[in-house]
Protein backbone atom coordinates (compact mmCIF):
# COMPACT_ATOMS: atom_id res chain seq x y z
CA UNK A 1 0.00 0.00 0.00
CA UNK A 2 2.84 2.31 0.96
CA UNK A 3 4.59 1.61 -2.36
CA UNK A 4 1.38 2.22 -4.24
CA UNK A 5 0.99 5.62 -2.62
CA UNK A 6 4.60 6.50 -3.36
CA UNK A 7 4.18 5.47 -6.98
CA UNK A 8 1.08 7.57 -7.20
CA UNK A 9 2.85 10.56 -5.65
CA UNK A 10 5.80 10.10 -8.03
CA UNK A 11 3.48 10.00 -10.98
CA UNK A 12 1.83 13.26 -9.99
CA UNK A 13 5.14 14.87 -9.05
CA UNK A 14 6.45 14.06 -12.50
CA UNK A 15 3.32 15.42 -14.14
CA UNK A 16 3.47 18.62 -12.08
CA UNK A 17 7.09 19.06 -13.04
CA UNK A 18 6.46 18.64 -16.74
CA UNK A 19 3.05 20.13 -17.39
CA UNK A 20 2.79 23.37 -19.29
CA UNK A 21 0.67 26.45 -18.73
CA UNK A 22 -0.17 29.30 -21.01
CA UNK A 23 2.51 32.00 -20.72
CA UNK A 24 1.43 34.98 -18.67
CA UNK A 25 1.64 38.51 -19.98
CA UNK A 26 3.86 40.59 -17.75
CA UNK A 27 1.93 43.04 -15.62
CA UNK A 28 4.98 44.56 -14.05
CA UNK A 29 3.83 48.17 -14.27
CA UNK A 30 0.67 47.30 -12.39
CA UNK A 31 2.59 45.24 -9.86
CA UNK A 32 5.35 47.77 -9.20
CA UNK A 33 2.82 50.28 -7.95
CA UNK A 34 1.97 47.88 -5.12
CA UNK A 35 5.53 47.34 -3.94
CA UNK A 36 5.99 49.65 -0.99
CA UNK A 37 9.71 50.07 -0.80
CA UNK A 38 10.54 49.94 -4.48
CA UNK A 39 13.30 52.28 -5.58
CA UNK A 40 12.25 53.80 -8.85
CA UNK A 41 14.49 55.96 -10.97
CA UNK A 42 14.49 59.30 -9.14
CA UNK A 43 12.78 62.15 -10.85
CA UNK A 44 14.02 65.72 -10.55
CA UNK A 45 11.07 66.52 -8.33
CA UNK A 46 11.99 63.64 -5.98
CA UNK A 47 15.54 64.84 -5.81
CA UNK A 48 14.51 68.40 -4.98
CA UNK A 49 11.99 67.14 -2.46
CA UNK A 50 14.48 64.98 -0.61
CA UNK A 51 17.38 67.41 -0.77
CA UNK A 52 15.56 70.57 0.22
CA UNK A 53 12.77 69.13 2.34
CA UNK A 54 13.76 71.01 5.50
CA UNK A 55 14.09 74.28 3.67
CA UNK A 56 10.80 73.81 1.90
CA UNK A 57 9.09 73.13 5.22
CA UNK A 58 10.64 76.27 6.68
CA UNK A 59 9.57 78.26 3.65
CA UNK A 60 6.03 76.92 3.87
CA UNK A 61 5.90 77.85 7.54
CA UNK A 62 7.15 81.35 6.87
CA UNK A 63 4.59 81.84 4.13
CA UNK A 64 1.67 80.22 5.91
CA UNK A 65 2.10 81.89 9.27
CA UNK A 66 1.53 85.47 8.10
CA UNK A 67 -1.29 84.29 5.84
CA UNK A 68 -2.97 82.64 8.82
CA UNK A 69 -2.56 85.81 10.88
CA UNK A 70 -3.88 87.95 8.05
CA UNK A 71 -6.82 85.67 7.43
CA UNK A 72 -7.77 85.91 11.09
CA UNK A 73 -7.89 89.69 11.01
CA UNK A 74 -11.27 89.88 9.30
CA UNK A 75 -12.64 87.50 11.92
CA UNK A 76 -11.48 89.85 14.64
CA UNK A 77 -13.18 92.73 12.89
CA UNK A 78 -16.04 90.39 11.98
CA UNK A 79 -19.12 91.97 13.46
CA UNK A 80 -18.38 95.49 12.43
CA UNK A 81 -17.45 94.60 8.86
CA UNK A 82 -20.52 92.46 8.32
CA UNK A 83 -22.74 95.13 9.68
CA UNK A 84 -21.18 97.86 7.60
CA UNK A 85 -21.44 95.78 4.42
CA UNK A 86 -25.17 95.42 4.95
CA UNK A 87 -25.46 99.10 5.62
CA UNK A 88 -23.41 99.90 2.55
CA UNK A 89 -25.67 97.77 0.41
CA UNK A 90 -28.76 99.42 1.87
CA UNK A 91 -27.36 102.85 1.22
CA UNK A 92 -26.38 102.01 -2.31
CA UNK A 93 -29.91 100.84 -3.04
CA UNK A 94 -31.11 104.08 -1.58
CA UNK A 95 -28.89 106.12 -3.86
CA UNK A 96 -30.15 104.32 -6.93
CA UNK A 97 -33.71 105.08 -5.88
CA UNK A 98 -32.80 108.65 -5.29
CA UNK A 99 -31.12 109.02 -8.66
CA UNK A 100 -34.28 107.77 -10.31
CA UNK A 101 -36.33 110.22 -8.32
CA UNK A 102 -34.10 113.07 -9.34
CA UNK A 103 -34.42 112.06 -12.95
CA UNK A 104 -38.20 111.89 -12.60
CA UNK A 105 -38.31 115.27 -10.92
CA UNK A 106 -36.25 116.75 -13.71
CA UNK A 107 -38.55 115.27 -16.29
CA UNK A 108 -41.53 116.80 -14.50
CA UNK A 109 -39.81 120.17 -14.50
CA UNK A 110 -39.15 119.98 -18.18
CA UNK A 111 -42.76 119.06 -18.86
CA UNK A 112 -44.02 121.90 -16.66
CA UNK A 113 -41.85 124.88 -17.53
CA UNK A 114 -44.06 127.24 -15.59
CA UNK A 115 -43.74 125.42 -12.33
CA UNK A 116 -41.32 126.40 -9.64
CA UNK A 117 -37.84 124.98 -10.12
CA UNK A 118 -37.49 121.77 -8.18
CA UNK A 119 -35.01 122.10 -5.41
CA UNK A 120 -33.50 119.74 -3.04
CA UNK A 121 -33.54 121.20 0.42
CA UNK A 122 -31.60 120.05 3.37
CA UNK A 123 -32.46 121.19 6.84
CA UNK A 124 -29.65 121.11 9.36
CA UNK A 125 -31.90 120.38 12.28
CA UNK A 126 -33.63 117.55 10.57
CA UNK A 127 -32.11 114.21 11.32
CA UNK A 128 -33.10 112.07 8.42
CA UNK A 129 -32.02 108.87 10.06
CA UNK A 130 -29.51 107.84 12.64
CA UNK A 131 -28.36 104.65 11.04
CA UNK A 132 -28.25 103.86 7.34
CA UNK A 133 -30.26 100.70 7.89
CA UNK A 134 -33.25 102.84 8.74
CA UNK A 135 -33.47 104.27 5.24
CA UNK A 136 -36.60 102.36 4.39
CA UNK A 137 -38.67 104.59 6.69
CA UNK A 138 -37.45 107.80 5.06
CA UNK A 139 -39.47 110.18 2.97
CA UNK A 140 -38.32 110.09 -0.68
CA UNK A 141 -37.60 113.83 -0.86
CA UNK A 142 -35.13 113.65 1.99
CA UNK A 143 -33.35 110.50 1.02
CA UNK A 144 -30.33 112.14 -0.47
CA UNK A 145 -28.98 113.39 2.81
CA UNK A 146 -27.59 111.52 5.72
CA UNK A 147 -27.16 113.69 8.73
CA UNK A 148 -26.26 111.29 11.45
CA UNK A 149 -23.34 112.07 13.66
CA UNK A 150 -20.12 110.52 12.36
CA UNK A 151 -19.62 108.38 15.43
CA UNK A 152 -23.06 106.85 14.95
CA UNK A 153 -22.31 105.52 11.53
CA UNK A 154 -20.42 102.39 10.65
CA UNK A 155 -18.87 102.28 7.29
CA UNK A 156 -17.16 99.72 5.16
CA UNK A 157 -13.42 99.80 4.87
CA UNK A 158 -13.78 100.65 1.20
CA UNK A 159 -16.02 103.58 2.03
CA UNK A 160 -14.88 106.82 3.30
CA UNK A 161 -16.74 108.72 5.92
CA UNK A 162 -15.69 112.29 5.76
CA UNK A 163 -15.55 113.46 9.31
CA UNK A 164 -17.23 116.54 10.52
CA UNK A 165 -15.59 119.71 9.22
CA UNK A 166 -13.14 117.77 7.14
CA UNK A 167 -12.65 120.55 4.69
CA UNK A 168 -9.55 119.30 3.04
CA UNK A 169 -11.42 116.69 1.09
CA UNK A 170 -14.39 118.86 0.36
CA UNK A 171 -12.29 121.44 -1.29
CA UNK A 172 -11.98 119.12 -4.24
CA UNK A 173 -15.64 118.58 -4.82
CA UNK A 174 -17.12 120.09 -7.88
CA UNK A 175 -20.83 120.20 -8.43
CA UNK A 176 -21.46 120.15 -12.12
CA UNK A 177 -19.78 123.16 -13.56
CA UNK A 178 -19.94 124.95 -10.22
CA UNK A 179 -17.22 124.73 -7.65
CA UNK A 180 -17.84 124.95 -3.94
CA UNK A 181 -15.38 127.47 -2.70
CA UNK A 182 -13.18 126.77 0.25
CA UNK A 183 -14.43 129.83 2.12
CA UNK A 184 -18.04 128.84 1.69
CA UNK A 185 -17.35 125.39 3.00
CA UNK A 186 -15.31 126.60 5.87
CA UNK A 187 -18.01 128.89 7.01
CA UNK A 188 -20.63 126.24 6.36
CA UNK A 189 -19.23 122.94 7.42
CA UNK A 190 -20.63 119.87 5.87
CA UNK A 191 -22.00 117.38 8.30
CA UNK A 192 -20.80 114.45 6.32
CA UNK A 193 -20.57 112.77 2.99
CA UNK A 194 -20.99 109.12 2.57
CA UNK A 195 -19.00 107.58 -0.11
CA UNK A 196 -19.00 104.04 -1.19
CA UNK A 197 -18.63 101.95 -4.21
CA UNK A 198 -18.26 98.40 -3.10
CA UNK A 199 -17.32 97.16 -6.50
CA UNK A 200 -14.29 99.40 -6.74
CA UNK A 201 -11.05 99.31 -4.91
CA UNK A 202 -11.27 102.93 -3.93
CA UNK A 203 -13.98 104.91 -2.31
CA UNK A 204 -15.79 107.65 -4.14
CA UNK A 205 -18.00 110.42 -3.02
CA UNK A 206 -21.61 110.26 -4.07
CA UNK A 207 -23.85 113.07 -5.08
CA UNK A 208 -25.41 113.31 -1.69
CA UNK A 209 -24.24 116.02 0.57
CA UNK A 210 -25.64 118.61 2.83
CA UNK A 211 -24.22 122.06 2.97
CA UNK A 212 -25.30 124.84 5.25
CA UNK A 213 -25.00 128.53 4.76
CA UNK A 214 -25.55 130.81 7.70
CA UNK A 215 -27.33 128.08 9.52
CA UNK A 216 -29.71 127.53 6.63
CA UNK A 217 -29.64 124.60 4.28
CA UNK A 218 -27.79 125.18 1.05
CA UNK A 219 -29.87 124.72 -2.01
CA UNK A 220 -28.63 122.53 -4.76
CA UNK A 221 -30.31 122.63 -8.12
CA UNK A 222 -31.29 119.30 -9.50
CA UNK A 223 -29.45 119.96 -12.71
CA UNK A 224 -26.30 120.38 -10.68
CA UNK A 225 -27.15 117.45 -8.51
CA UNK A 226 -27.46 115.25 -11.53
CA UNK A 227 -24.09 116.15 -12.88
CA UNK A 228 -22.19 115.79 -9.68
CA UNK A 229 -18.99 114.03 -10.55
CA UNK A 230 -17.76 111.15 -8.50
CA UNK A 231 -14.76 112.27 -6.55
CA UNK A 232 -12.01 110.02 -5.53
CA UNK A 233 -11.35 110.36 -1.85
CA UNK A 234 -7.71 109.58 -2.02
CA UNK A 235 -7.91 106.07 -0.66
CA UNK A 236 -5.84 104.10 -1.27
CA UNK A 237 -3.20 106.66 -1.85
CA UNK A 238 -2.01 106.69 -5.40
CA UNK A 239 1.01 108.84 -4.87
CA UNK A 240 3.22 109.53 -1.94
CA UNK A 241 6.04 108.39 0.23
CA UNK A 242 5.90 105.40 2.46
CA UNK A 243 8.19 103.91 5.06
CA UNK A 244 8.43 100.39 6.32
CA UNK A 245 10.21 97.91 8.52
CA UNK A 246 11.31 94.66 6.94
CA UNK A 247 12.97 91.52 8.26
CA UNK A 248 13.34 87.92 7.25
CA UNK A 249 15.47 84.82 6.87
CA UNK A 250 18.22 84.89 4.28
CA UNK A 251 19.81 81.91 2.58
CA UNK A 252 23.25 82.29 1.11
CA UNK A 253 24.79 79.78 -1.22
CA UNK A 254 27.92 79.44 -3.23
CA UNK A 255 27.05 77.78 -6.53
CA UNK A 256 25.48 74.33 -5.77
CA UNK A 257 27.50 74.01 -2.58
CA UNK A 258 24.59 73.45 -0.25
CA UNK A 259 23.42 75.25 2.86
CA UNK A 260 24.57 74.83 6.42
CA UNK A 261 22.91 77.65 8.24
CA UNK A 262 20.30 80.33 7.62
CA UNK A 263 21.14 84.01 7.92
CA UNK A 264 18.83 86.95 8.32
CA UNK A 265 18.39 90.58 7.46
CA UNK A 266 16.37 93.47 8.78
CA UNK A 267 16.09 97.14 8.06
CA UNK A 268 14.24 100.17 6.98
CA UNK A 269 12.37 100.43 3.73
CA UNK A 270 11.45 103.67 2.00
CA UNK A 271 9.43 104.07 -1.15
CA UNK A 272 7.53 106.41 -3.35
CA UNK A 273 4.36 105.42 -5.15
CA UNK A 274 4.39 106.86 -8.64
CA UNK A 275 0.92 105.70 -9.55
CA UNK A 276 -1.42 102.82 -8.94
CA UNK A 277 0.98 100.34 -10.53
CA UNK A 278 4.53 101.57 -10.07
CA UNK A 279 6.61 102.39 -7.02
CA UNK A 280 10.29 102.98 -6.40
CA UNK A 281 11.84 101.56 -3.27
CA UNK A 282 15.10 101.79 -1.47
CA UNK A 283 16.25 100.94 2.02
CA UNK A 284 18.99 100.16 4.43
CA UNK A 285 19.27 96.60 5.68
CA UNK A 286 21.66 94.91 8.03
CA UNK A 287 22.39 91.41 6.74
CA UNK A 288 24.00 88.42 8.37
CA UNK A 289 24.83 85.64 5.93
CA UNK A 290 26.32 82.18 6.29
CA UNK A 291 27.76 80.16 3.44
CA UNK A 292 29.50 76.89 2.91
CA UNK A 293 31.86 75.53 0.25
CA UNK A 294 33.01 71.95 -0.17
CA UNK A 295 36.73 71.32 -0.10
CA UNK A 296 36.75 69.97 -3.65
CA UNK A 297 35.18 73.13 -5.05
CA UNK A 298 37.43 75.41 -3.06
CA UNK A 299 40.59 73.46 -3.90
CA UNK A 300 39.79 73.61 -7.63
CA UNK A 301 38.93 77.27 -7.49
CA UNK A 302 41.84 78.36 -5.31
CA UNK A 303 44.38 75.95 -6.81
CA UNK A 304 45.19 74.30 -3.47
CA UNK A 305 44.83 70.77 -2.16
CA UNK A 306 44.40 71.02 1.58
CA UNK A 307 40.81 72.23 2.14
CA UNK A 308 38.22 69.79 3.41
CA UNK A 309 35.51 72.46 3.51
CA UNK A 310 35.02 76.17 4.02
CA UNK A 311 32.56 77.99 6.21
CA UNK A 312 32.02 81.71 6.00
CA UNK A 313 29.95 84.29 7.76
CA UNK A 314 29.33 87.79 6.52
CA UNK A 315 28.07 91.01 8.03
CA UNK A 316 27.08 93.70 5.59
CA UNK A 317 24.82 96.65 4.97
CA UNK A 318 22.62 96.32 1.95
CA UNK A 319 21.24 99.27 0.02
CA UNK A 320 18.68 98.20 -2.57
CA UNK A 321 17.04 100.24 -5.28
CA UNK A 322 14.08 98.56 -6.91
CA UNK A 323 11.16 99.28 -9.14
CA UNK A 324 7.96 97.69 -7.92
CA UNK A 325 5.06 96.87 -10.20
CA UNK A 326 1.62 95.84 -8.94
CA UNK A 327 0.45 92.99 -11.14
CA UNK A 328 -2.93 92.59 -9.49
CA UNK A 329 -4.53 95.39 -7.50
CA UNK A 330 -7.38 94.34 -5.25
CA UNK A 331 -9.16 96.12 -2.42
CA UNK A 332 -7.60 93.72 0.05
CA UNK A 333 -4.08 93.96 -1.31
CA UNK A 334 -1.74 93.83 -4.25
CA UNK A 335 0.36 91.16 -5.88
CA UNK A 336 3.55 92.68 -7.12
CA UNK A 337 6.87 91.96 -8.74
CA UNK A 338 9.98 93.98 -8.13
CA UNK A 339 13.34 94.15 -9.80
CA UNK A 340 16.38 96.24 -9.10
CA UNK A 341 19.91 96.35 -7.85
CA UNK A 342 21.61 96.16 -4.46
CA UNK A 343 24.87 97.52 -3.21
CA UNK A 344 26.61 95.99 -0.23
CA UNK A 345 28.78 98.21 1.89
CA UNK A 346 30.87 97.42 4.93
CA UNK A 347 31.15 93.79 3.94
CA UNK A 348 33.08 91.83 6.53
CA UNK A 349 33.67 88.11 6.00
CA UNK A 350 35.07 85.66 8.49
CA UNK A 351 36.21 82.56 6.66
CA UNK A 352 37.20 79.31 8.28
CA UNK A 353 38.84 76.61 6.16
CA UNK A 354 38.66 73.09 7.53
CA UNK A 355 41.91 71.44 6.55
CA UNK A 356 42.15 67.79 5.52
CA UNK A 357 43.37 65.37 8.21
CA UNK A 358 46.26 64.28 6.03
CA UNK A 359 47.69 67.79 5.89
CA UNK A 360 50.17 68.31 8.69
CA UNK A 361 51.89 71.48 7.64
CA UNK A 362 50.66 74.56 9.45
CA UNK A 363 48.34 76.46 7.15
CA UNK A 364 46.50 79.61 8.15
CA UNK A 365 42.98 78.30 7.98
CA UNK A 366 41.20 81.40 9.14
CA UNK A 367 41.14 84.80 7.54
CA UNK A 368 39.03 87.90 7.34
CA UNK A 369 38.02 89.59 4.16
CA UNK A 370 36.30 92.89 3.73
CA UNK A 371 35.15 95.09 0.92
CA UNK A 372 33.15 98.26 0.62
CA UNK A 373 31.77 99.37 -2.68
CA UNK A 374 28.82 101.45 -3.66
CA UNK A 375 28.74 99.76 -7.04
CA UNK A 376 25.78 97.46 -7.54
CA UNK A 377 26.57 93.96 -6.33
CA UNK A 378 23.40 92.08 -7.10
CA UNK A 379 20.36 92.06 -9.31
CA UNK A 380 17.29 91.68 -7.11
CA UNK A 381 14.18 89.91 -8.29
CA UNK A 382 11.16 89.38 -6.07
CA UNK A 383 7.51 88.49 -6.14
CA UNK A 384 5.27 89.41 -3.27
CA UNK A 385 1.94 90.29 -1.79
CA UNK A 386 0.87 93.38 0.12
CA UNK A 387 -2.12 93.12 2.39
CA UNK A 388 -3.84 96.37 3.31
CA UNK A 389 -4.41 96.65 7.01
CA UNK A 390 -5.79 100.12 7.17
CA UNK A 391 -6.17 103.27 5.18
CA UNK A 392 -2.47 103.73 4.78
CA UNK A 393 -0.66 100.64 6.03
CA UNK A 394 0.29 97.38 4.36
CA UNK A 395 1.78 94.10 5.47
CA UNK A 396 4.03 92.56 2.86
CA UNK A 397 5.46 89.12 2.19
CA UNK A 398 8.14 89.14 -0.44
CA UNK A 399 10.25 86.13 -1.45
CA UNK A 400 13.30 87.28 -3.36
CA UNK A 401 16.60 86.18 -4.79
CA UNK A 402 19.74 88.02 -5.67
CA UNK A 403 22.02 87.24 -8.59
CA UNK A 404 25.61 88.46 -8.20
CA UNK A 405 26.89 91.01 -10.70
CA UNK A 406 30.56 91.81 -11.14
CA UNK A 407 32.90 90.59 -8.44
CA UNK A 408 34.79 92.54 -5.77
CA UNK A 409 31.67 94.47 -4.90
CA UNK A 410 30.41 92.61 -1.92
CA UNK A 411 28.84 89.69 -3.70
CA UNK A 412 31.79 87.30 -3.48
CA UNK A 413 34.74 86.37 -1.32
CA UNK A 414 38.33 86.10 -2.28
CA UNK A 415 40.41 82.95 -2.17
CA UNK A 416 43.69 83.17 -0.35
CA UNK A 417 46.07 81.94 -3.00
CA UNK A 418 44.65 82.44 -6.44
CA UNK A 419 43.31 85.91 -5.81
CA UNK A 420 40.08 84.89 -7.52
CA UNK A 421 36.75 85.46 -5.90
CA UNK A 422 33.86 83.05 -5.48
CA UNK A 423 30.40 84.50 -6.12
CA UNK A 424 27.73 84.20 -3.46
CA UNK A 425 24.01 83.91 -4.21
CA UNK A 426 21.32 85.14 -1.84
CA UNK A 427 17.65 84.38 -1.44
CA UNK A 428 15.11 84.83 1.29
CA UNK A 429 11.78 86.26 2.32
CA UNK A 430 11.08 89.76 3.46
CA UNK A 431 8.19 90.15 5.82
CA UNK A 432 7.37 93.66 6.85
CA UNK A 433 5.00 96.50 7.36
CA UNK A 434 4.85 99.78 5.48
CA UNK A 435 2.87 102.95 5.92
CA UNK A 436 2.20 106.02 3.84
CA UNK A 437 3.48 109.29 5.22
CA UNK A 438 0.84 111.98 5.22
Amino acid at each position, binding site marked *: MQDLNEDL*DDLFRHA*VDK*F*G*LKPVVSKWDEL*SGRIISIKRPRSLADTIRSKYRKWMMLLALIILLPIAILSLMPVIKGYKTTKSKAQGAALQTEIKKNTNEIANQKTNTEHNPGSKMQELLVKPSEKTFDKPSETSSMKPAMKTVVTAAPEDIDYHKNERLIPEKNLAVLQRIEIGSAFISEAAIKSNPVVQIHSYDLGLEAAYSINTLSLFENGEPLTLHLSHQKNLPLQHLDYPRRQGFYLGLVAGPMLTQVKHQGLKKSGFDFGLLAGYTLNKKFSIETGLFYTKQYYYVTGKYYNEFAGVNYAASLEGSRNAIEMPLTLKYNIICKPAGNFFIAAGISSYVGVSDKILIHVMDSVHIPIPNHFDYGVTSLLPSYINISLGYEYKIGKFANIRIEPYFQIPLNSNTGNSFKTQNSGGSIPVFNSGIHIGISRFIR
Partner: protein
Amino acid sequence: MDNITHIIKGCIRQEYKYQKILYERYLGFALKIVFRYMYRYEKAIDVVHDGFVKLFNHFPNFKIGKDEENEKILFAWLKKVMINASIDELRKGQMMPEIGGIPEFVWGITDIHNDADQQVLYKELVTLIVELPPAYRTVFNLYAIDGYSHAEISEMLNIPVGTSKSNLSRARMMLQKNIKELEKVNLCRI
Protein backbone atom coordinates in the same frame (compact mmCIF):
# COMPACT_ATOMS: atom_id res chain seq x y z
CA MET B 1 21.77 38.08 -19.17
CA ASP B 2 22.42 39.10 -15.61
CA ASN B 3 23.78 36.62 -13.16
CA ILE B 4 21.21 35.46 -10.57
CA THR B 5 23.35 36.65 -7.64
CA HIS B 6 23.57 40.05 -9.30
CA ILE B 7 19.78 40.14 -9.68
CA ILE B 8 19.26 39.07 -6.08
CA LYS B 9 21.59 41.77 -4.84
CA GLY B 10 19.70 44.33 -6.91
CA CYS B 11 16.43 43.11 -5.44
CA ILE B 12 17.87 43.36 -1.93
CA ARG B 13 18.67 46.98 -2.72
CA GLN B 14 15.03 47.26 -3.88
CA GLU B 15 16.06 48.42 -7.32
CA TYR B 16 13.32 48.63 -9.89
CA LYS B 17 15.38 47.20 -12.75
CA TYR B 18 16.37 43.97 -10.99
CA GLN B 19 12.94 43.42 -9.49
CA LYS B 20 11.49 43.55 -12.99
CA ILE B 21 14.06 41.06 -14.32
CA LEU B 22 13.37 38.64 -11.48
CA TYR B 23 9.60 38.97 -11.87
CA GLU B 24 9.69 38.30 -15.59
CA ARG B 25 12.12 35.40 -15.23
CA TYR B 26 10.19 33.51 -12.53
CA LEU B 27 6.60 34.45 -13.36
CA GLY B 28 5.94 31.16 -15.17
CA PHE B 29 7.53 29.11 -12.43
CA ALA B 30 5.45 30.83 -9.76
CA LEU B 31 2.25 30.42 -11.76
CA LYS B 32 2.77 26.68 -12.09
CA ILE B 33 3.02 26.40 -8.32
CA VAL B 34 0.00 28.52 -7.59
CA PHE B 35 -2.19 26.99 -10.29
CA ARG B 36 -2.02 23.58 -8.55
CA TYR B 37 -3.61 25.12 -5.52
CA MET B 38 -5.96 27.64 -7.01
CA TYR B 39 -7.90 25.83 -9.77
CA ARG B 40 -8.81 29.07 -11.56
CA TYR B 41 -6.15 30.38 -13.95
CA GLU B 42 -7.11 34.06 -13.59
CA LYS B 43 -7.25 33.78 -9.83
CA ALA B 44 -3.87 32.07 -9.88
CA ILE B 45 -2.36 35.04 -11.75
CA ASP B 46 -3.70 37.42 -9.11
CA VAL B 47 -2.27 35.27 -6.35
CA VAL B 48 1.10 35.14 -8.10
CA HIS B 49 1.17 38.93 -8.17
CA ASP B 50 0.26 39.10 -4.49
CA GLY B 51 3.10 36.68 -3.85
CA PHE B 52 5.59 38.80 -5.78
CA VAL B 53 4.56 41.92 -3.87
CA LYS B 54 5.25 40.12 -0.59
CA LEU B 55 8.48 38.74 -1.97
CA PHE B 56 9.83 42.12 -3.05
CA ASN B 57 8.73 43.88 0.10
CA HIS B 58 10.65 41.35 2.20
CA PHE B 59 13.59 40.95 -0.13
CA PRO B 60 16.01 42.95 2.06
CA ASN B 61 15.75 40.01 4.52
CA PHE B 62 17.15 37.60 1.92
CA LYS B 63 20.32 35.93 3.20
CA ILE B 64 22.63 35.73 0.26
CA GLY B 65 24.92 32.69 0.01
CA LYS B 66 27.38 31.27 -2.48
CA ASP B 67 26.75 31.91 -6.17
CA GLU B 68 25.77 28.32 -6.94
CA GLU B 69 23.37 28.12 -3.98
CA ASN B 70 21.60 31.43 -4.45
CA GLU B 71 19.23 30.26 -7.17
CA LYS B 72 18.18 27.21 -5.11
CA ILE B 73 17.60 29.38 -2.07
CA LEU B 74 15.60 31.81 -4.16
CA PHE B 75 13.54 28.98 -5.68
CA ALA B 76 12.73 27.55 -2.28
CA TRP B 77 11.78 30.96 -0.92
CA LEU B 78 9.71 31.87 -3.94
CA LYS B 79 7.92 28.54 -3.73
CA LYS B 80 7.16 29.02 -0.06
CA VAL B 81 5.89 32.56 -0.61
CA MET B 82 3.64 31.42 -3.47
CA ILE B 83 2.28 28.49 -1.48
CA ASN B 84 1.53 30.74 1.48
CA ALA B 85 -0.15 33.28 -0.81
CA SER B 86 -2.27 30.45 -2.27
CA ILE B 87 -3.26 29.18 1.14
CA ASP B 88 -4.19 32.71 2.22
CA GLU B 89 -6.39 33.06 -0.84
CA LEU B 90 -8.02 29.67 -0.27
CA ARG B 91 -8.72 30.64 3.34
CA LYS B 92 -10.46 33.79 2.10
CA GLY B 93 -12.76 31.54 0.05
CA GLN B 94 -13.14 29.25 3.09
CA MET B 95 -11.89 26.31 1.01
CA MET B 96 -15.15 26.22 -0.88
CA PRO B 97 -15.13 23.88 -3.89
CA GLU B 98 -14.98 25.57 -7.28
CA ILE B 99 -17.59 25.12 -9.97
CA GLY B 100 -16.98 24.51 -13.68
CA GLY B 101 -14.14 22.92 -15.59
CA ILE B 102 -10.72 24.18 -16.52
CA PRO B 103 -10.77 25.89 -19.90
CA GLU B 104 -8.52 24.44 -22.58
CA PHE B 105 -6.74 27.76 -23.29
CA VAL B 106 -4.85 27.69 -19.97
CA TRP B 107 -2.63 24.83 -21.06
CA GLY B 108 0.64 25.27 -22.87
CA ILE B 109 3.71 23.30 -23.88
CA THR B 110 6.83 23.77 -21.84
CA ASP B 111 9.09 20.90 -22.89
CA ILE B 112 9.52 20.34 -26.60
CA HIS B 113 11.16 16.97 -25.96
CA ASN B 114 7.92 15.54 -24.57
CA ASP B 115 5.64 14.09 -27.17
CA ALA B 116 2.02 15.14 -27.50
CA ASP B 117 0.67 12.07 -25.68
CA GLN B 118 2.81 12.76 -22.68
CA GLN B 119 1.72 16.38 -22.64
CA VAL B 120 -1.90 15.25 -22.63
CA LEU B 121 -1.15 12.83 -19.83
CA TYR B 122 0.52 15.49 -17.72
CA LYS B 123 -2.32 17.86 -18.34
CA GLU B 124 -4.89 15.26 -17.31
CA LEU B 125 -2.97 14.34 -14.19
CA VAL B 126 -2.65 17.95 -13.12
CA THR B 127 -6.33 18.43 -13.86
CA LEU B 128 -7.06 15.54 -11.51
CA ILE B 129 -5.15 17.30 -8.75
CA VAL B 130 -6.71 20.67 -9.42
CA GLU B 131 -10.21 19.18 -9.48
CA LEU B 132 -9.87 17.75 -6.01
CA PRO B 133 -11.86 19.51 -3.29
CA PRO B 134 -9.77 22.43 -1.97
CA ALA B 135 -9.04 20.86 1.42
CA TYR B 136 -7.83 17.58 -0.13
CA ARG B 137 -6.04 19.35 -2.96
CA THR B 138 -4.12 21.58 -0.55
CA VAL B 139 -2.96 18.73 1.66
CA PHE B 140 -2.06 16.54 -1.31
CA ASN B 141 -0.08 19.34 -2.95
CA LEU B 142 1.70 20.22 0.27
CA TYR B 143 2.55 16.65 1.21
CA ALA B 144 2.97 14.70 -2.04
CA ILE B 145 4.23 17.41 -4.39
CA ASP B 146 5.91 20.05 -2.24
CA GLY B 147 7.29 17.72 0.42
CA TYR B 148 5.90 19.17 3.63
CA SER B 149 5.34 16.93 6.64
CA HIS B 150 1.95 16.47 8.28
CA ALA B 151 3.16 18.48 11.28
CA GLU B 152 4.08 21.41 9.03
CA ILE B 153 0.82 21.12 7.10
CA SER B 154 -1.21 21.10 10.30
CA GLU B 155 0.57 24.28 11.36
CA MET B 156 0.21 25.97 7.97
CA LEU B 157 -3.46 25.16 7.57
CA ASN B 158 -4.25 25.34 11.27
CA ILE B 159 -5.76 21.87 11.28
CA PRO B 160 -5.01 18.78 13.42
CA VAL B 161 -2.38 16.38 12.12
CA GLY B 162 -5.05 13.65 11.95
CA THR B 163 -7.16 15.79 9.65
CA SER B 164 -4.17 16.37 7.44
CA LYS B 165 -3.52 12.63 7.22
CA SER B 166 -7.13 11.74 6.54
CA ASN B 167 -7.41 14.46 3.90
CA LEU B 168 -4.32 13.11 2.22
CA SER B 169 -5.67 9.59 2.32
CA ARG B 170 -8.99 10.68 0.83
CA ALA B 171 -7.23 12.72 -1.80
CA ARG B 172 -5.19 9.70 -2.86
CA MET B 173 -8.28 7.50 -2.96
CA MET B 174 -10.06 10.03 -5.15
CA LEU B 175 -7.07 10.32 -7.42
CA GLN B 176 -6.76 6.53 -7.79
CA LYS B 177 -10.41 6.31 -8.60
CA ASN B 178 -10.18 9.13 -11.10
CA ILE B 179 -7.09 7.65 -12.73
CA LYS B 180 -8.96 4.37 -13.26
CA GLU B 181 -11.83 6.26 -14.80
CA LEU B 182 -9.40 8.16 -16.96
CA GLU B 183 -7.82 4.88 -18.13
CA LYS B 184 -11.24 3.54 -19.04
CA VAL B 185 -12.01 6.65 -21.06
CA ASN B 186 -8.68 6.44 -22.82
CA LEU B 187 -9.21 2.74 -23.61
CA CYS B 188 -12.62 3.54 -25.04
CA ARG B 189 -11.02 6.19 -27.25
CA ILE B 190 -8.56 3.62 -28.59
